[in-house]
Each structure stands twice: as C-alpha cells, then as structure tokens.
C-alpha cells in the first residue's frame, strides 16, 4: 500500500536516548512471532505477544497472515527476522548497553497502523518499566 493512501500518524515527541553503549535495546517485531504455546494471530489482530529475552528458537514460531513472503529464511536463521543473538553479541562486545528482558511482536499487514495506538502505548509503558532506552522495530 502506498504511503499517500494511509492515514498519516507521526511524528511523535522527539526523544534522545543515552549513548548506545549505555542503552538497553528491545526488539519490536511485526512478523507475527510468538511462542508455540501462545495463541496465533488472527486476521486484523491488534494485540501483541510477549517474547522473553531468553527465548530459544525452537520455541519461536510465526503465524503472520501474508502469503507474500516465505518462511524459509526465518526457518533457516531466525535472527534474520528476530535478531536476538545479534543483540546479545553487540551487548557482549559493549556496543550496546544491554538487551531487554522482554521483547514484543505484532502482526503487520495492517493498512491503518493508527489502530495500534492503544497497544503501542501499552508496550511503551512496559518497556519503560523494563528500563528500555531503544525500541528496535523490525518489520517483516
């Protein structure tokens, strides 16, 4: 969908985080990721799933509704969609301050992203309580 066909949203309040090597980073995915035990996403889902920072990839699945991308890349290397190992490596190397305890997943493919406002603000509050300085949004 072209940007001009979508309702305009931003910009939000400008925030400058701490230096990156002092910043805690959380991933926010729109790939429809969730733990296998969680309910899968439905068409038009506005809710989200929590993903713990110590997630193991054998517990992470994807129920995104779109047929227009294949799951084979995620199947071969989940970091290409959910780069939690990369964050851990950057933290170990001192390039970022730390990795958040919790990460979050939505299902994208939503023509009107303003509908995510309520749940977006909710995870914002959760990330603030988790000490998150930087939200790394990774669309699919």
């Amino acid at each position, binding site marked *: 969908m072209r940007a001009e066909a979508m309702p305009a949203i931003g910009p939000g309040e400008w925030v400058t985080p701490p230096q990156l090597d002092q910043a805690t980073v959380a991933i926010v995915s729109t790939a429809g990721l969730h733990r296998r035990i969680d309910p899968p996403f439905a068409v038009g889902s506005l809710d989200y799933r929590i993903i713990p920072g110590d997630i193991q990839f054998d517990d992470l699945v994807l129920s995104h509704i779109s047929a227009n991308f*294949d799951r084979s*890349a995620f199947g071969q290397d989940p970091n290409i969609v959910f780069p939690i190992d990369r964050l851990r490596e950057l933290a170990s190397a001192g390039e970022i301050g730390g990795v958040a305890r919790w990460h979050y997943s939505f299902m994208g493919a939503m023509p009107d*992203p303003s509908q995510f406002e309520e749940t977006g603000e909710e995870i914002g509050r959760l990330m603030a309580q988790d000490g998150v300085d930087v939200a790394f949004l990774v669309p699919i």
Partner: protein
Amino acid sequence: MSEAVVPPRALWVPFDLGRPLGAIDDSEFQKNVMRTAFGLLDTAVEPTIEDYQIEAPDKGLSDTWSCPLNLTSESSGSLGERLLAEVARLRPWAIETRRQRGRTLFGISGAREDQVDELARQFAAIAETGEVTSEPVTDEISWAFEMPLLLRHIADDLRTFYHEAIAAQPGGNAPDHDALSRWIFSDTVLGETLVLVADGLTKAPDSPMAQLVRGLLIPEGHYRGGSAFPKETKFPIDPAT
C-alpha cells in the same frame, strides 16, 4: 509505511520481504545493518529515513534454482493420492532438516509434525469437494483455527513442510520466495491443490472473509495468472463474516 508513520529514525533496506536483516546465517552482515540503524541515534536530529545501500550477498542466486526431485512423476491416482505420494517423497528431507535444526515451524494449523499425512489428506479433500465453510472432520488433529482462516494455516503448514524438505537438500542457502513459489505452483501437486482450494473460496457464499483468505492463500501472481486478492478489502474484517 515509514512515510505514513514517521518514526523518529528509519533505515530503508533493499532486502526481500521476510528477510529484514538481509543475509541468512551471516552475523556480521546482520550486525552491520543494525549498527547502521543504531547509528541514526547519533546523527538524526529530526525524523529521518535513510537508505541502506548494501544488497544482500545472496541476491539473485535463486534465479536458476530448481528442485532436484522430479515430483511431476506423481501423476496417477486421485488428487489426495498424488499429494500424499508427493509428501512421502519429501518426508526424508523434511525429517533431516528438523534433525539438523532441532526445530520446525510446522504446526500453526494445530497439526503435529507426525500428522502431515492427515493434513495433506484433509487439504486435498477440501480441494476436491470445494467445502470451505466447515472444519474438516478428523479424529487426529485438533484445529487451532475456524474456517475459512484455517485453510490459510493448513496451506502454510504444508508449504513449511515443503520448504523444510528443500532446505536439507544439497546446495547453498534456501531459495528465495519467488523461486519457492515458482516451484510450488509449477511443479508440485501442492500448488495444484492450493489453486483448487482458492477456487472453492471464490465460489463460497458471499463472505468477505472467504475472499480475503483466498488472497492470503496464494502469493501475488500465482493464482490463475494473477492476484488471488479481492480488489477491495477493508480492515478490520469480522471473522464471523
């Protein structure tokens, strides 16, 4: 999307859908994408969309990919028999991928890994009968969705089984989305079955959800030469419709 949402800092990447970090099993490439995105924290002073200039190293490698198995030999019998025969030929490879990875993406529909035959049998029956309103009756599988959305996830589980089978075969990285879609819809009984199920959804009683699921079942360009998506779709759609 970024132009409409106006995030504070955005990195536009030139990678295929489904591969936002660009390169499979290439940690340094992935981290460089992230470093560039994080670098905007230091440089941007207003909402910024920056282009990432580096292509994925495997771009174009799938253009000449073809599956070594000749699945078109499964040409006799009913649709269900042919689909089950095809699944049987792919099974050793799918098992090998799961053994190597220690995980699978199969199972969103509610089927367990050892129920792929029943899943294929039920999907072929739906294609043959055009019944897209009632969940398939089976004692084996506890479905995770209601119809017609269930169809989309049965299809995805079967595609996942095929993709995981391909991944274990000799060669390099998994082929990309276009190569996999060309293979599924040109050379497999699964592709034939998917199109027939989409036909059933087309003929379903006036149901926006059925038409939407048809579009979500088949990638763009692979449904009878065009898009399976309805021309106009408005969200949110009430699943009950």
